């Protein structure tokens, strides 16, 4: 069984949602992760709060947040166990982040620590 990271990519991290909307997304996300965990396919994961985030550039230039010049931001990720890329993609399809137009979930296989990869 391989491990895949599902990276949540938000087109615009500055969009402000209502507390009610946030509440709904949160529950949907928790249920989605719970569903993967109930299949014994959850490995790890975390959300990435936008508050107090920094970007370090070439020549150690530091700017606030991954906003402004960068159009796309990462909102979080989870690592799942899956038999195939197809299975990992099926998990990704349920991600509530995809309800936002322009948002995407990137599915990438983790390199195995076996000296080959």
């Amino acid at each position, binding site marked *: 069984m391989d491990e895949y990271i599902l990276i949540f990519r938000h087109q615009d991290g500055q969009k402000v949602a209502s507390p009610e909307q946030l509440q709904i997304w949160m529950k949907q996300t*928790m*249920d989605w992760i*719970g569903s993967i965990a*109930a*299949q014994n396919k959850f490995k790890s994961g975390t959300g990435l709060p936008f508050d107090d985030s920094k970007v370090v550039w070439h020549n150690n230039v530091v700017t606030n947040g991954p906003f402004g010049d960068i159009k796309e931001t990462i909102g979080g990720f989870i690592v799942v166990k899956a038999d195939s890329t197809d299975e990992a993609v099926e998990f990704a399809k349920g991600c509530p982040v995809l309800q936002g137009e322009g948002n995407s979930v990137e599915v990438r296989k983790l390199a195995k620590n076996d000296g080959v990869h």
Partner: protein
Amino acid sequence: MQQELIPHLFRTEFRKIVAVLCKTFGIEHIEAAEDIASETFLTAIESWPYKGIPESPVAWLYAVAKNKAKNHITRTQLFKSKISAELKKNLPESGEVEIDLSEQNISDSQLRMLFAVCHPSISVESQIALALRILCGFGIDEIANAFLTNKETINKRLFRAKEKLRDERVEIEFPGESQAKERLETVLTTLYLLFSEGYYSETQDAILREDLCVEAMRLTNLLIENPSTSLPQVNALLSLMCFHASRFPARKNENGELILYDEQDETLWNQELIAKGIYFLHQAAQGTSVSKYHLEASIAYWHTIKEDTHEKWENILQLYNQLLQIEYSPIAALNRTYALSRANGVEEAIVEAEKLKLSNNPYYFSLLGELYSAVNKEKAESNFHMALKLARTPADKKVLQRKLKKLLNQQL
């Protein structure tokens, strides 16, 4: 009168004497410690019927145990070569061995024994058997009964476990700082399983079952009484045990048949234990870490509220979502899916249930039967039949037959 007194004292005092003697002699002399404790009770059985029950039976037992221990030490050849080395560390000037049966030393010894018995080098099954024997004073018959096996198997298991403790030279002490966390984890697992053994045991002996749970709670409490082991996850475990134990009187009918949660008479739930569970859950909330015991205790807390509200099932669902991320188990996955049906609706739960792929698990089909009952009677029936085919215990079969009957009555 002594017919009841001696078994009672055996249950409460045997383990204390064994723990103190083990701590004094070292774990490699665990059998000698057991022998001395047994002989002490034999002496009581021989002498009390004729001489009368002493004014303070416990003090009498301790005095006899002390004498026997001292005789054993002077008599045995082992003394010079083996025990003496261990004893020299805390031997007073006089050279006289002091067997300290004070309350303080008893609980200290039992706590250390708990860590020794739950040593990672021995199998969990053996840890439980050993804990029942050494720390709970259970007879071999009772242990065999609890595990639904025979005396020989238990004797062998105990023998091998003791041998292992000797081979590994397990010290009767608190593990050092570096090991403490990992070792405590093993201790908690054993206590958790000891409790479950009692709670879910198939044995018909109801008193024995409750005893197992009471002992698991007593030992957990021992950890809580000691400041260095009264950690959040330990309090959470005791909280969980209190909540479960509160339903003991309501779980079985007069024929010993299981009564499911929905059908229980909640006036039989023990409110005092529920209050204790809440107290320990509050204690457990100190600190920032969330263990699986925290989550399971919180789930058990919501179950102490009989009324079905959306809030209740939404909370239970989210707790199971978290629990499964920490530790997957088929039963947690099934319970999560049931909670999902109550919080988000049956349709979504059926879709999720079909993903679980637990097709050799009777509870999986039982859950599917339950979920389909409201929307597709035929599918419900075939799933209950599948569950019946896979069910392992008579109690489970009975529950399933009741569910099938209820379903078929609905159809008419």
